[in-house]
């Protein structure tokens, strides 16, 4: 086939069409494989353990002002006047576990000195946002925490509380 014949033709030549067809199919195939690979590496969480629903305890075990650590679920239950706040114990800075310091009356991360109050708000240090939340509901007087879903927040808001 001579090139000037090609140029004369209007539209797309057969060769060019096939070339694009091949290219597009190969790209599609590659994309599909990559998506599959990514999905392979994203496991579904098993229920019961961390990542599933966890019973923290009776609602009246968390009176206002109390801080309770539920290590199985990796969270703190902070008792407030109008309900409880369930916060992941993971520092929002770089993921260290934040201990509650009874002597200081606040959360104090040992890694880079991040400090949070009872509502999880940042008082000092490098954490970029308050402690993350788990959603919880009260079923038969028990606090059931869904550790599968993490909610990030910019500040404390009473709507984040769970109550009966």
């Amino acid at each position, binding site marked *: 086939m001579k090139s000037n014949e090609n140029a004369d033709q209007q539209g797309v030549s057969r060769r060019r069409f096939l070339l694009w067809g091949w290219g597009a199919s190969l790209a599609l195939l590659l994309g599909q494989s990559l998506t599959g690979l990514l999905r392979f590496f994203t496991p579904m969480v098993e229920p019961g353990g961390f990542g599933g629903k966890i019973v923290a305890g009776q609602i009246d075990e968390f009176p206002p002002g109390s801080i309770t650590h539920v290590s199985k679920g*990796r969270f703190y239950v902070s008792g407030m006047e109008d309900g409880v706040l369930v916060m992941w114990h*993971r520092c929002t800075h*770089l993921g*260290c576990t934040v201990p509650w310091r009874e002597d200081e009356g606040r959360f104090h*991360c040992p*890694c*880079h000195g991040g400090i949070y109050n009872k509502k999880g708000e940042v008082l000092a240090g*490098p954490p970029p946002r308050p402690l993350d939340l788990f959603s919880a509901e009260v079923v038969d007087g028990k606090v059931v925490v869904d550790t599968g879903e993490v909610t990030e927040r910019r500040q404390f808001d009473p709507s984040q509380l769970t109550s009966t």
Partner: protein
Amino acid sequence: MSIESWTNRLTQSRLWRSYFRHGWPDNPLDRSLLMTSGLFFHLHPVKVNRKSLRWSYSMGLGIITIVLFLVLLFTGTLLMFYYIPSVERAYPTMKAIQTGIPLGQFTRDMHRWAAHLMVLAVILHAARVFYTGAYKAPRQFNWVIGVFLLLITLGASFTGYLLPWDQLAYWAITVGTNIAGYAPIIGSVLRTLLLGGREVGQNALIRFYTLHIMVFPLLLILAISYHMWRVRKDGGLAAQEVSDTPDAEPEGTAPEADQHDDNTSLADTGRDWVIFPRNPSKTYGLVELMSGTSPMVNRGPENTVFSFPIVLLLELIIFLGTTFLLFLFSLARHAPLGEMANPTITIDPAKAPWYFVGLQELLEHMHPTLAGIVIPGVLVLFLLAIPYLDNSRSGAGRWFTSARGKRIVLWTTLYTLVVMPAYILLDNLITPREALRGVLPGYVSQWLIPIVVIGLLVALPVLILRRWRPTPREIMLTLFTVMFVSAVIFTLSGFFLRGPGFKLYPPWNMPGGYNPLNDL
């Protein structure tokens, strides 16, 4: 019987001749053939430049890296015979390796030391290549491969760091992977991919294990082989072989060829001497002539020696020296193993492995996305771009290129040594983040101020240099030196000066008897 007759009998034997296509390598021809016909040997050049063999030139860092990698493959395979990558069993098997298996502790020590030293050797090798200008054309792409090798090495080392499953490992990896979570858009996906969940657990352990024993070693073997082969293809080590004023006449052999009387000259070369003479006494064959330049342009056989046996001998010496050093290190200091990993209790301080502790120091001064993603990303891009920003061929193969280059590096080093520690101390004293909390929005103290300050500190030496009309190479020397020295300073500060709570302390006065060296 003399040695000669023995080698003769050996090289005449059927077995020898079935494998080697040449005789005993004691003459130029067989020495060349040895190098070109063996799979492993052919990663070497046939002949090497004399200057490139000097210790003061290459310091043997590339070979040292390869030796360390071989030691890692060997000791790592040994450890795999006992290690079980499970959250419950990993730590007990580590204990068992150290206490219940003959030479188990020693094997682990060797592996640990070799891993640390390999990262160090790769970094120093990169610095050597940069400062001797060996990234210049035609070696640009091998420099790019080298940057990827650096990244793969870091990955291999970092994934191995988790496997002991002690507190040190657990929290170092937690902090490290959380930095990845700050990558814009893909951050949390990336983190989940790495960990196979939201925290470091069984999925993360087995992922790191597979990456560590399979993916990264395979990548390393491939990339190292390619890197070495490419050194040969690019014309060996850059040891000042391209002189700025060419003194040898590369076409000096042409008149000789003229003497063969034959008229099958190539019509389209337009030359009047014969390139493919038909001559029964001819001992060489040319395949084809094409236009274009090869890495061998401007270089002749002068100043070169056969690789066999000198290069192999040097490699053997480096191999023995490196393993001996490892041996001494392993006897002097055991690899640490802390308490078993406990996700609910964070150790204090929780430090990343030493090669990332510089980043952790940086994290103290700015927003995590800036310190953990943007700055490292920019640095890697800068490294990749160096040979394309400075694309002149001249000045390669000599430390700092010129006397002026040397002075530039010296002054830049001094400048960085003053400026960066001052920045760390001042920023720690004032801490804009806390001073401006609630006064100005977070991005001012966490993004704006650090970008402006660091940007100025990096740009200043280049601006000063402009007065002397620098070459691109000299600008690269300045920028690379600022980067390299800063990396060293931040690493030292993060490693030695940061104590509990990651606060600055004088190293001789760490609270609670904390000794940073214990983390190595």
